[in-house]
């Protein structure tokens, strides 16, 4: 692994295009933007969903209270889960359209450009070759 972090444009010809792109600031920023959305949002919808399950299991009389006519707190809560699911899907799609897709397309083109330039294609080792490689790395 090189200590300098070469940009995608000035890749040394022997290096794996995927590694070069992975170390580029553009890719690092892309990964951060992706993870910064999916992990917090994942936590939000899981907590929100588990809150419904908690209330359905342990706050039954509250969930059974009628709000409008025969419509209960529980049903409104469950309906809100539908609304939040649609909303999160829309939010993510907008976010990805704006913040992920354009950079991802650029970096994909960059990998392909370096690929054709260097003629380097990732080769996959067999299980036994991987065993040898891991032994060497451990030694």
């Amino acid at each position, binding site marked *: 692994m090189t200590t300098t972090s070469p940009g995608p444009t000035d890749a040394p010809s022997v290096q794996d295009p995927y590694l070069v792109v992975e170390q580029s600031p553009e890719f690092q920023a892309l990964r951060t933007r992706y993870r910064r959305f999916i992990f917090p949002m994942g936590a939000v919808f899981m907590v929100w969903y588990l809150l419904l399950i908690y209330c359905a299991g342990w706050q039954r009389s509250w*969930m059974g209270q009628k709000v409008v006519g025969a*419509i209960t707190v*529980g*049903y409104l809560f469950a309906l809100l889960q539908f609304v939040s*699911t649609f909303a999160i899907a829309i939010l993510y799609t907008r976010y990805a359209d704006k913040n992920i897709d354009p950079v991802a397309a650029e970096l994909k083109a960059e990998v392909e450009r370096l690929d054709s330039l260097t003629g380097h294609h*990732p080769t996959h080792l067999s*299980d036994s070759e991987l065993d040898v490689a891991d032994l060497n790395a451990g030694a």
Partner: protein
Amino acid sequence: MNTLAAIVTDSQRALAISLFVGFVGITLFITVRMGRKTKDADDFYAAGRSITGIQNGIAISGDYMSAASFLGIAGLIALYGFDGFLYSVGFLVAYLVVLLFVAEPLRNSGKYTMADVLAYRLRQRPVRTAASISTLTISLFYLLAQMAGAGALVSLLLGITSDLGKSLTIAGVGVLMIIYVIVGGMKATTWVQIIKASLLMGGTIFISLLVAIKFNFNPSTMMQAAQDASGNPNFLAPGNRYKDPVDLLSLGLALVLGTAGLPHILTRFYTVPTARAARTSVNWAIGIIGAFYLMTTFLGFGAAALVGAKAITEADKGGNSAAPLLAQVLGGGADSIGGTVLMSVIAAVAFATILAVVAGLTLASSTSFAHDFYNNVVKKGEATGKEEVRVARFATVVIGILAIVLGILAQKQNIAFLVGLAFAVAASANLPTIMFSLFWKRFTTRGAVWGIYGGLAMSLFLVIISPVGLGTPTSLFSTTASSIFPLSNPGLVSIPFGFLCAWLGTMTAREATSEAMYPELEVRALTGAGAH
């Protein structure tokens, strides 16, 4: 049995059968046409990656909305009110896990199966063997539930009550599913799903609309009528089915985390050309499935109010008759033309639903067997695409026959737990390994293998020692020995256990090659470079 005779008339039986035969005819025609266009492994496993995002979204909905959803959830809401609706919520929210974490990276870094992603930087043979075993287990459980459901459905909807008639129906469903898959591969299966999803949505919208008209488009009136008819003042509150809140939590976890590990859903993402199209697929699936599950409240409450719990449970203890009986009442009753037509349509849609879902499941299992196990484990990756597809077709026949035989044998068993169990295994065995291999650089082969086998074994073990296996009059193994594990779904314990095994396996040994390959996997997963 006089209630059965009362709900099924001869003309209705004839109409339902002819509608179903029409569905089979159209789908077989498409299958043969698609079969001519199925030339290589890409076509057979992944429909040549030629499906659009929208088409795939509809097909995912078709794969997902099983008869268990259509008939089962409508029945649960009709009989238990709110607790049934929780299934709908869990099944939908689950797609956020698919959308945010799994669909796009999977599409970008895999080829045909879930194991492609795991094997990218781990040892091929142990990882693919494990993934193949979990895929076959999950699919077989799910298949069995659908097949036995088909047997129950004919007696319910067509009045065929003899054991031979039911067994023949199961065999017929199995043979049709084998034909769809071996002749038309993924292309045909996709179109079967699309047609089925359209029929199911059309039928559900129509029935829901009729229910809404009955109650002047006022959900409060409908729910009040459902509560009044149930005679239970707490009908609209939680707790009518799940007395133990921990049981509810366990099921809720399995539902929300299982979908992202279901092999027949995951393989669908390989049929589209790009990650963007995979995202579009999930969004369409969320829209369609969300609308469908919202409508299950109309079916369920409508049935509770207009049919009544007594008539529903008299026809079928599990409540599966709620939607068809509701259709009959809405059409004008058992002796009317409207009632006959409407109930026949719903019966035919339910059969189409079962047939499409079993085809999707069979294709996912034979794909994993041929691609993961035969080619990459037995043949060490040397098999040609042609050989692989030949093995996949052969596996389809074997799995199909196995499903028919087990489906016939399981008819007398109480197998309603099988779908919940399939979700629990998917969440416990598959999800930890998929998530860790995509997002954790240090993840190792041992972690993947321990995670899959650990999650799988724990789920099965807990079910065997739970009330499903022991201690109740309907238990599978012993009705006298008391159960050791109190929950009917193992998810609450087995899902964390699967993650723990995957973590422990990873922390006990380092794997330099896996870490070295991670950058490449990451670039592929995020950008789509080098994608198949």
